[in-house]
């Protein structure tokens, strides 16, 4: 019998091609979207999982802001780790990292820059469960001047040779060190927030000129180290955290140590000086919600369509009943059909998600892949999908069994008013979700547009930052002379408009930027609590970047090119408690010991940290020898030849002066945009899935409207015979749908408003949720509804009533 049912089901699906297609299509979209989103969500949640990772915590600093502590710095002191281990038995071990963003590797004639590596304590392999392929995990990092390489880096350096005991020179800011390879580790997976390509033993600090005494001496002054703790699995984390928070080893009331699980860092941490750009739990929550909404929408859709269809099949059901089919047999057959259809849909959905993955990846700039492990991790998801589909198949099945045979035969079936209510509820829910998604997409898009068009407070276009590592025996001052020579040569290039030296620039965020606390103001007040940020530039910096001064002006160096001058931003003036910027001009600031700087100007606030974060107090110091170049290109001169040739010519000059060196450049505007790249991606994903949700919802509506038209066939006929025009019939049929969309709209607006408000809270600068967003969402949902419904209504309205009203 099962086999017979199966045959019937197959035939039925083949016969009703449009119905089958719409159904399979809708479900497959739901399944594919769900899988794609869940792949991403799973990936984002898979960060920093390794053997024992649940017992590893990162130490970070909280800073006092007003009356409460806020996360202030992801980096800690070199004393933090040792002290915590000594004081708390629950802390089994610690490992400190001094992060090296970019170092230059020299091997014979070869010289190249290698991003992302660290100085690390020998305890690294005890705390982190990443396996060592070669070398002893206890001793690999215990001696000075040793290095552990990742497989990729080892291959890059030594090819297929055994890297062990080989030596390589590493250069940082001109300071060289020769290192012996004592270990080979697997490449750190992508889903790790701290991805080291190499580890240099911590003890190397003492032999490498790059580190000075002030840095290497154990202290609670310079927080440049990431510290991770391995905690006893029996320790009470809450009380340990409490004890750490309330301890005060560094005798500084304004800050405190704190800990967080390493597994939470990627999604929940967004502190200053993060080692890498992290993900966002909010985004993950939003995307998960969208995934579930789409999947549920596609199920609702299926229920809608199949009940519609079962109505059309009422006569068939009636005949079956008359010839003696049991109710359960009808139900079973219906479930067979839905299982068949859903299985096909899931297959299509899975295949589609595989095929769409590259497109999805390029659209959202992800690098997701489906491999065996991601596939098995998706098993619960598949289970969930199957269960949902089975349940979705039940409702129409039981509905079918319910029809009275005699009535069904006469074509007089109508579902109970409860059934109608359920279907209306389904449609309202679908539209509710759709409207919320439309509003959400629009708010996200508007916010990104807002960010992109927000004045940065500086002109970043056509400015290139040049940086490189120079391998040379020259002294610092001689090297600076070379830089100045280069600057002069570059100025002579026809397309170079202006040039300056600066340690960092707007949008570079916390990179290359010093943070500090403790300053003596001109009025004698000592401020110990406000965190401020400092970097060095040369006088032309402000002009080159178009950063205007509110009062005062840029630096005026003396004849030898030196000065002790400084400029501050408006936020600094405000946060330090001055009423007007004038109060600072020509007066002295004292910080970093007894060093004094004279304020020559207060410049307008600009967004150094991107637009997601608020403006922080900035001090911009004059410095004679800064070696990072900012070059402003002439847009007209470069537009013809293109930027690449311009960069090529610049690199030529660079290589002429620095014969043994690496060369790096970055366009400032691109770098600034990178701050909200993730949000842009999110916005795109949001858009795509909203369109899919709309598509699914309109399929559902299409189903329901065809159902309504079938059910109201007789009524339409009667009304037409009694003189109703086509327009009047259309109005009659459409008004209900419009009411439902209206109802959905009323419910959707406050929900969407609340949810999107929450999302916007993640931005320091946010766009307004204008009324027209809501209006547009409502109107477009209505338009989609009317268009979908009208096609069917129109068919119904133009049918000759004679056909509908034939007497038996």
């Amino acid at each position, binding site marked *: 019998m099962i086999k017979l049912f199966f045959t019937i089901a197959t035939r039925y699906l083949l016969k009703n091609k449009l119905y089958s297609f719409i159904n399979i299509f809708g479900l497959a979209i739901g399944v594919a979207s769900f899988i794609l989103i869940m792949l991403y969500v799973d990936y984002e949640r898979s960060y920093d999982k390794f053997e024992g990772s649940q017992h590893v915590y990162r130490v970070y600093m909280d800073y006092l802001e007003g009356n409460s502590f806020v996360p202030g710095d992801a980096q800690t002191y070199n004393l933090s780790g040792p002290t915590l281990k000594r004081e708390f038995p629950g802390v089994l071990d610690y490992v400190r990292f001094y992060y090296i963003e970019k170092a230059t590797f020299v091997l014979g004639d070869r010289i190249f820059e290698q991003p992302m590596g660290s100085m690390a304590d020998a305890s690294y392999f005890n705390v982190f469960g990443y396996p060592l392929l070669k070398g002893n995990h206890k001793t690999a990092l215990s001696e000075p001047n040793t290095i552990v390489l990742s497989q990729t880096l080892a291959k890059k350096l030594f090819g297929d040779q055994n890297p062990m005991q080989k030596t390589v020179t590493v250069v940082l800011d001109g300071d060289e060190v020769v290192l012996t390879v004592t270990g080979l580790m697997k490449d750190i997976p992508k889903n790790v927030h701290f991805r080291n390509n190499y580890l240099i033993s911590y003890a190397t600090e003492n032999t490498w000129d790059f580190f000075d005494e002030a840095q290497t001496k154990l202290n609670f002054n310079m927080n440049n180290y990431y510290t991770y703790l391995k905690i006893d699995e029996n320790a009470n984390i809450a009380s340990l955290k409490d004890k750490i928070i309330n301890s005060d080893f560094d005798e500084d009331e304004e800050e405190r140590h704190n800990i967080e699980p390493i597994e939470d860092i990627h999604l929940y941490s967004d502190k200053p000086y993060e080692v890498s750009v992290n993900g966002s739990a909010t985004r993950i929550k939003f995307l998960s919600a969208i995934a579930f909404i789409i999947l549920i929408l596609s199920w609702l859709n299926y229920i809608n369509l199949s009940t519609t269809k079962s109505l059309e099949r009422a006569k068939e059901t009636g005949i079956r009943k008359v010839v003696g089919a049991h109710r359960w047999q009808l139900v079973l057959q219906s479930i067979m059909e839905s299982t068949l259809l859903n299985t096909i849909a899931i297959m299509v959905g899975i295949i589609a998600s595989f095929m769409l993955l590259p497109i999805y990846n390029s659209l959202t700039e992800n690098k997701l892949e489906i491999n065996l492990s991601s596939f098995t991790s998706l098993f619960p998801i598949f289970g969930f999908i199957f269960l949902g589909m089975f349940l979705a198949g039940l409702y129409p099945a039981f509905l079918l069994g319910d029809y009275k045979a005699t009535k069904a035969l006469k074509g007089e079936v109508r579902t109970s008013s409860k059934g109608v209510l359920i279907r209306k509820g389904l449609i309202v829910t679908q539209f509710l979700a759709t409207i919320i998604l439309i509003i959400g997409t629009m708010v996200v898009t508007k916010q990104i547009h807002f960010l992109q068009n927000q004045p940065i407070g500086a002109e970043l276009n056509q400015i290139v930052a040049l940086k490189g590592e120079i391998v040379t025996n020259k002294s610092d001052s001689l090297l600076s002379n070379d830089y100045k020579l280069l600057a002069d040569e570059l100025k002579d290039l026809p397309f170079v408009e202006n040039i300056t030296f600066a340690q960092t620039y707007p949008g570079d965020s916390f990179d290359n930027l010093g943070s500090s606390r403790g300053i003596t103001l001109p009025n004698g007040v000592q401020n110990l609590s406000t965190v401020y940020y400092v970097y060095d530039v040369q006088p032309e910096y402000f002009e080159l970047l178009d950063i205007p001064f509110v009062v005062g002006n840029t630096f005026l160096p003396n004849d030898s090119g030196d000065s002790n001058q400084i400029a501050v931003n408006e936020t600094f003036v405000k946060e330090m408690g001055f009423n007007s910027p004038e109060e600072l001009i020509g007066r002295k600031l004292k910080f970093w010991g007894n060093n004094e700087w004279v304020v020559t100007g207060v410049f307008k606030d600009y967004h150094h940290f991107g637009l997601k974060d608020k403006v922080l107090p900035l001090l911009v110091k004059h410095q004679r020898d800064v070696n990072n170049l900012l070059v402003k290109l002439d847009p007209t001169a470069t537009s013809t030849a293109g930027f690449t040739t311009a960069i090529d010519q610049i690199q030529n000059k660079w290589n002429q002066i620095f014969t043994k060196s690496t060369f790096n450049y970055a366009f400032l505007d691109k770098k600034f945009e990178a701050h909200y790249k993730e949000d842009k991606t999110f916005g795109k994903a949001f858009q795509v899935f909203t369109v899919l949700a709309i598509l699914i919802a309109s399929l559902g509506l299409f189903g329901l409207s065809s159902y309504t038209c079938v059910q109201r066939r007789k009524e339409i006929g009667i009304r037409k015979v009694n003189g109703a025009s086509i327009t*009047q019939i259309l109005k009659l049929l459409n008004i209900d749908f419009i009411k439902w969309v209206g109802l959905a709209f009323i419910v959707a607006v406050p929900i969407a408003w609340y949810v999107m408000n929450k999302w916007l809270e993640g931005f320091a600068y946010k766009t307004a949720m204008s009324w027209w967003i809501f209006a547009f969402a409502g109107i477009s949902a209505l338009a989609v509804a009317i268009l979908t419904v009208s096609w069917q209504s129109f068919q119904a309205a133009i049918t000759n009533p004679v056909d509908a009203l034939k007497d038996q």
Partner: protein
Amino acid sequence: MLLELKNIFKWVNSGGQRVFLLKDINLKVDEGDFISIMGPSGSGKSTLLNVMGMLDGFNEGEYNFLEQSVHTLKEKKRATLYKEYIGFVFQSYHLLDELTVQENLEMPLLYKKFKGSERKAMVADMLDRFNIVGKKDLFPAQLSGGQQQLVGVARALIANPKLILADEPTGNLNSNQSEEIMQLFQQLNKEGVTIIQVTHSEKNAQYGKRIIQLLDGRMV
């Protein structure tokens, strides 16, 4: 003259062949006529009625209604003509189940630009005339077949049509109820309403002033 059918042919194409539903129908109906159409099942009675009621078209011939040639009229004009002059009564009543008696009566008026107050008056008048005031708030399912058909006739009459087309109006009724409807028709006819009815019953046919016999779509 109310309407005139001249050499009306109607056919459908089935399997590449013409199947004739109506063949060479010629019929003149004067105002005040009462015609009964008879014939075996499938002989084309309903088809003919629908053609006269403008619910259905035809393939050949001429149809004039009140001096206007229906076959050349635009859809809109035809709809106006239909709305103003024709009322339909069906074998299975075709009342709207979701509407009360009163609302069913009011329904055609909604499509004919009557004011609210006028509609109320007209509905009240009909309820009165058919003695169903007491049933005005009931739903069709709560009425007997005879009562339902009474409402059906009342609804056909409510906008004062000149012509009532009734397709086996008593087909679902018992003899008492049939009798009642037939007498109602006779009464209406006396008041000047033209009536064309399809019937299987010899007795009911006798209420008509003329009887037309159909066989295989042809008048005999």
